[in-house]
């Protein structure tokens, strides 16, 4: 079903949500950055889309650091574990289409072939009110990745910004239930509303200045035809920061370590990145990806062919553009695939 809510009334719905549910939304920091956050007292929810939030939505489902369990040893004779609490219900308001697509990618990844129950439960217990972007940021290229700026599924409610009001695409029973709770604030959508949405979709597509040739990238990967010079140039630029993995909605690599100070402690998992040389180094010292070029190849193949296309049947990139912003040295996805189309730029200088 489709309903409409005036923007002047929308604030009341947000307040109500913040009041009686656990609400996650993009907030504006005093640094001017946008960040997805649990909405607490005094925070300013911001649904502008000219900037993409600093980090993706994944940290609410697959956390930057979280306990797998707590342990207590009795010498070496015995041990006991305590599990962290079960996930709770949450509402995620204002998650961008690209980020929601990323969450659905995570859902598929953590479900099969073995199920990570905590991640899956967190996703299943979240009501998604996604935000389709009426205008993109210069770094965005979701249109090239079948990731937006408006989706046909994956959300409970999708907000379409029509200027003075939101058209809400309501897809699920959960979404409908929420709408009926605020029936005094909404009205059914009309033909005019729907037409405005259609023309908005056409307009916004043209507003994307960054055209990334994902098809070229996928093709080059599949044919294994990326010139060696491309890898060596990237290798000399990449500083191995790992930032691309941390900001990426579909990156899922993690490290596991025990922390303890005596007989008690915790086993945590933390975000990790295949860009780090230590990621594949074995206890013997042998490292199958000792060269940076090998790690870069791995990253791009993973995103553009293997894991995604072969295993998941979809592209491993949602075009959110965060790697474009987070990579200080132009080794981001967009630059990479564009280069493959235009070899010139990567000839290097000497």
């Amino acid at each position, binding site marked *: 079903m489709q309903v409409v809510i005036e923007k002047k009334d929308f604030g009341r719905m947000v307040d109500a949500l913040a009041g009686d549910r656990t609400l996650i939304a993009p907030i504006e920091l005093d640094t001017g*950055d946008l960040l997805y956050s649990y909405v607490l007292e005094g925070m300013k929810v911001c649904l502008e889309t000219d900037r993409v939030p600093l980090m993706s939505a994944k940290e609410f489902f697959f956390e*930057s650091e979280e306990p797998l369990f707590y342990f207590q040893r009795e010498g070496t004779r015995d041990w006991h574990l305590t599990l962290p609490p079960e996930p709770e219900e949450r509402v995620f308001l204002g998650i961008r289409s690209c980020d929601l697509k990323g969450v659905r990618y995570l859902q598929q990844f953590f479900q099969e072939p073995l199920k990570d129950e905590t991640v899956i439960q967190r996703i299943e217990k979240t009501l998604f009110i996604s935000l389709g972007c009426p205008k993109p940021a210069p770094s965005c290229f979701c249109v090239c990745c079948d990731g937006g700026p408006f989706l046909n599924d994956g959300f409970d409610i999708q907000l379409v910004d029509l200027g003075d009001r939101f058209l809400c695409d309501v897809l699920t029973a959960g979404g409908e239930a929420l709408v009926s709770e605020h029936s005094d604030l909404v009205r059914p959508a009309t033909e005019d509303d729907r037409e405005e949405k259609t023309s908005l979709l056409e307009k916004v597509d043209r507003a994307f200045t960054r055209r990334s040739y994902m098809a070229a990238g996928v093709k080059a990967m599949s044919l294994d035809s990326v010139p060696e010079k491309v890898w060596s140039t990237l290798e000399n630029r990449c500083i191995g920061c*790992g930032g691309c993995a941390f900001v990426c909605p579909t990156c899922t690599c993690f490290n596991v370590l025990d922390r303890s100070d005596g007989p008690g402690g915790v086993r945590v998992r933390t975000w990790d990145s295949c860009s780090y040389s230590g990621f594949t180094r074995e206890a013997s010292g042998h490292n199958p990806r000792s060269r940076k070029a090998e790690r870069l190849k791995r990253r791009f193949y993973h995103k553009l062919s293997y894991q995604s296309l072969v295993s998941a049947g979809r592209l491993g990139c949602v075009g959110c553009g965060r790697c474009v912003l987070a990579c*200080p*040295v132009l080794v981001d996805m967009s630059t990479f695939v564009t280069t493959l189309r235009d070899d010139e730029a990567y000839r290097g200088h000497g």
Partner: protein
Amino acid sequence: MKATICPFCSCGCRVLPRRSAAGKVVGLTPSRNHPVSMGSLCMRGWHAVEYALHRDRLTTPRVRKNGRQVPCSWDEGIERAAGGLRDVIEKHGPEKIAFIGSTRCSNEDNYLMTKLARAVIGTSNVDAGGRLDFFPILDAVEEAGGGAEATLERIEAADMLFVIGSDLSGSSPMAASRVFRALERHAELVVVDPRPTALANLAHHHLRVYPGTDRYWMRGMMACLIRAGRTDPRFGPLAKSLSHFSLPHAQEVCQVPLTTMETVAERLARARKAVFMLGTGIHKHGEATRHTVHDLVRLSWITGHMGTQGSGIMVVGGDNNTQGAWDMGMSRHRNESFPGPPEGKPDQGMDYAQVIDALLSGELRALYVMGDDLPASQNPLREALSTLDLLVVQDIFRNDLTDLATVVFPASSSFERAGSFTNLERRVQWFGPILDPLENTRPDWDILGSLARSLNSDFLFQDVSEVTDEIASQVPRYRDIDSARLKKAFNGILCAAAGEREPQNGILASQENEMVPAPSPGGEFPLLLLSGRDPSTWGTGNRSSRITLLAREATPATLHLHPDDAKSLGVKQGSKVRTVWSSGMIETPAALSEDVPRGLAYMPTQRVDGAFPLRPKRTLPVRIETC
């Protein structure tokens, strides 16, 4: 302000806390609206906060009683330190006391230490570890009038870039970032480095200079331009001093081909905006560094890039507050315009190296160290430290130095407090706490304040911003950079006005022609060892080794040799070798690489805490032995 500044390199990225669902800080996120970080961080920045949460943090003051260190209260620790200082002043005089500050501590911490030393104790023996690497370069740039005016923005907008003696991708990644953006705009890049670094591999010109001979290519370029009639009559005296400069000889010494010198000099003369990034690779010894920097300023001067819009010199590769520590007077060759604390006399005391000498000779009786990695694990330094009348150490982790101390004060990390750091652009930036202070730790400035009050001074600072405000009133360069402005200036405040600079004619026209010949290694120590850095290990690694993913990156120290040299030494890939120098040695595996020039050896300094000599010159004559 709920954001801080990364405490590793001198870029000064603005970082925000990243929290788990439970509200615990689990990492850092870069701010995007910041002129340095611009949404990026390096591998250190993403994980920096982890060390502050490490269980090895010092959590109680300690004092030595009957030969053993025991926990004590703050009052007891402060009184012991104050009493110890009073005793030494009485018995030996204030000139037997030295203070060592830190290029990693804030402006306020270093300022108060300088003030404590000069105004309260009455000694001018105050310096920081930066004396061994970056301070001499900053001194020389300042002296020549070519103060570091370059900003990261200028790097990106320049049409010619020099990166001299720095593996920029690791040491100042955000500067490297701007270099790559400049390359996209077709800027020309010159990298001067004996080894092929990542940046050198993408450069238009890679000058594989023989270490320590940079004056030869710099003068060579000047001579080329002068002889080609490309410089104007203003530079007459300089031209005259170079009239007998032998280009063929220069080529032979520095191993930069004459044609390269000519080409690059010409390109530089034509460039409209040139930025020079200078690292510690130019070090050879004492005076030579000073003259090398002066020659670079001369080169920038005669090619029209001194103090002109868009051009500049930037010192890269330092710590988060190398610039600030230097500005606060943590330097023997202080900027004359810094008058020092109100009651102090700005006379010259011992610098870091001289303090070590005085320590070893037994002349020094008391040492106060704040946040410095003084290598205390080996003799003779270890023994000398043990025999001081008083050794006070402020730090965040226990180490060999704190173990020897008479009094240990547990400091708060930068993540737990506020203050200001000055980055490589001379951008002064406020940092605010993102963690609750670890219980029973205190900020460095606060510890110094307590100590000063215990010595009956009027250090009545209640809040760090009061110190910031005093700096704003006392340090000419920091005038008007008060705490109120800083706290609101998320992007910091640039403290050097970028504008037309008049060269200090005295310096630039002066001859300084005596070129100390590059000491060629030979005899007992026939190879020259280059030290370098792996980005995962910062300094001696006391912080970076306590960050999981960085510790995982760091590999054991390895000596790199050219295959030809290795062959003649009988060294194979992976075999164990002993690197011996005049005052020590270290055993590591060897690796063969054509990236290492013949006659040189290369060892990234990781996990060699204490094994390198106290004055880690950039190059060291060594002998390689098989084990």
